[in-house]
């Protein structure tokens, strides 16, 4: 009897010791030393080993409740785990980060921002084609809300331009139209972003370039040149150029549309938000009614005009804060706009 009681007590004790409250977890992406250069080697570590300055985006692991898991929940579900392990209030009633941002690599070559290359890449990977830049590798970037975003957000972008924490907060409040994130939530998001940072295999490098980095790591090459080489292989920030709809909306942009390409844009971009009212009140589907409506409004100056909303976006209004962000030229080219139009015209018949 005593033996049974002791065994039972030990079992309970073991269970209690093994049990961990979710917030107690500080599963911040750990950085282990890279022994050899492999495709899985973390770019940030390699750069640091080459003597580059430490990333300014390091997570503050001293802060309570910081957890990569919570960060992932905030990014993908819109809430995290607060004090006591309970769900926090939703960050936004309208969006989650993944409404507008992928969390996987979305460009075949990270050193250029080419919307057509991206479209074909995300199609192959089963990802949507979105207005926002992928969060994959966000911690490796040093510039945010670049280019013309100041036209949209004014002075709000100043603090966010070179500070990922401010950029996350700006995204939460303005882009997602939600509540401010607590500091520990921002650190948690950052901790999650470190789990999807760039790896050496993500960079497009030939054998010679790879050897130069390897040699530099082994102390046989120029480390400064290796750092420079690696930084040429990805963009420090996403360029953003705001463009207007075509001057003559009936004529459109002076390009011939490719309906096949337009189909990809419709399915991977438009339907991502508008199918079954996922993030938008205005619903789209593959019925002729949808295509006829889009076609009718394409050349108009209404909120149903694709030219209008894709290039200018819509504004969040009181009671209807779920707005549509615009597509910069780097996120959808004028050619792609015409491709989309060609598909709409083809499908309305």
């Amino acid at each position, binding site marked *: 009897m005593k033996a049974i009681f002791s065994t039972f007590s030990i079992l309970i004790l073991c269970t209690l010791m093994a049990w961990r409250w979710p917030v107690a977890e500080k599963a911040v992406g750990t950085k282990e030393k890279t022994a050899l250069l492999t495709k899985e080697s973390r770019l940030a570590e390699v750069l640091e080993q080459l003597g580059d300055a430490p990333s300014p985006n390091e997570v503050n692991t001293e802060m309570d409740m910081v957890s990569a898991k919570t960060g992932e929940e905030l990014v993908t579900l819109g809430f995290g785990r607060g004090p006591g392990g309970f769900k926090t209030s939703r960050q936004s009633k309208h969006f989650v980060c993944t409404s507008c941002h992928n969390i996987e690599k979305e460009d075949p070559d990270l050193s250029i921002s080419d919307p057509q290359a991206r479209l074909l890449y995300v199609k192959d990977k089963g990802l949507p084609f979105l207005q926002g830049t992928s969060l994959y590798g966000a911690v490796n970037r040093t510039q945010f809300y670049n280019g013309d975003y100041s036209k949209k957000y004014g002075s709000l972008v100043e603090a966010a331009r070179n500070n990922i924490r401010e950029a996350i907060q700006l995204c939460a409040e303005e882009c997602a139209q939600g509540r401010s994130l607590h500091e520990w939530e921002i650190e948690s998001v950052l901790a999650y972003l470190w789990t999807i940072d760039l790896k050496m295999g993500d960079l497009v490098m030939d054998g010679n370039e790879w050897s130069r980095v390897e040699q530099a790591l082994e102390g046989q090459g120029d480390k400064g040149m290796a750092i420079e080489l690696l930084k040429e292989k990805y963009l420090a920030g996403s360029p953003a150029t705001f463009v207007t709809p075509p001057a003559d909306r009936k004529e459109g942009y002076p390009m011939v549309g490719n309906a096949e390409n337009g189909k990809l844009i419709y399915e991977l971009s438009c339907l991502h938000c508008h199918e*079954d009212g996922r993030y*938008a009140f*205005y619903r789209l589907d593959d019925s*002729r*009614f*949808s295509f*006829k409506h889009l076609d009718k409004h394409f050349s108009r100056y209404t909120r149903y005009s694709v030219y209008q909303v894709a290039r200018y976006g819509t504004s969040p209004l009181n009671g*209807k804060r779920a707005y549509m962000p615009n597509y910069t030229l780097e996120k959808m080219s004028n050619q792609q706009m015409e491709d989309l139009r060609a598909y709409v015209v083809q499908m309305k018949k």
Partner: protein
Amino acid sequence: MLKSILSLLLLTGFSFALYSQEKISQTFKDTRVINSHSVETLPKRKLDVRISHRFGDFAGDNGGYKTFFGLENATDILFGVDYGVTDRFTIGLHRTKGAGSMPDGSSGLRQLLNGVGKFRLLHQTSDNRVPVSMTLVGVASLSTAEKIDDNPDIIRSFPKFAHRMATHAELLIARKFSDGFSLQLIPGFTQRNLVPFEDENGIFSLGLATRVQLTKVMALVADVTFPFSERRTTENGFYTPLGVGLEFDTGGHVFQFNVTNATALMETDYIPYTTSNWSAGQFRLGFTISRLFNL
């Protein structure tokens, strides 16, 4: 017993397997057709603020120019909210004026608080493994009208508190046949706890509703409900509630303009108490505004 539990588990598992198929969306665009509920439930965390209005008789003795074709009268008014607790479960609370009456003019329940619960049982799938969508609806209406003690012949005498209540349950079975055409069958049962002399408390009914999409924004909708009751005949002064309307969906906003002979807006009211006759001009204009909010 064990066998039954096992069967139930298997059935539940089968149902979830079916749910993994691609679902057909928007069999109807609103949670109501005209008078009837539609098979649609609200998406999770969506709040639907609704205002409905039924004007007076368009023509006939009480209509025409003297009431500006009924626009100067309001037979029933509803305002309330529905909320999507989950994608399959919607609850709602609505206030209605109450408008049903017997052929002799005695009124049904008035000043109603109506609670609504909707649970989606099945969702039609694109591969037809689930050929129809099904939703269970429950409505409970409570009259908040002042009690009239000294007249036991009228409903508002309310001998017991329960007499203030009427309930309705229905099963909605709908199929979207194409992008442009949906049809819905509505077997239902209405229970009134207190009824006029010689009337019956429980009434079975069968409704039919349809939607024909005309453009992306506009659709033609119609519904009719047949109460199964020997007393509810045209000879006795009762008529079948029938409505037709045009519905405009502008994205987050649904506006409906309709014409119906039903004076009341809730099932507990218009199924037992429709005494207006289309052919006598006793139909009315009505509208419904529905506005969705993210919560």
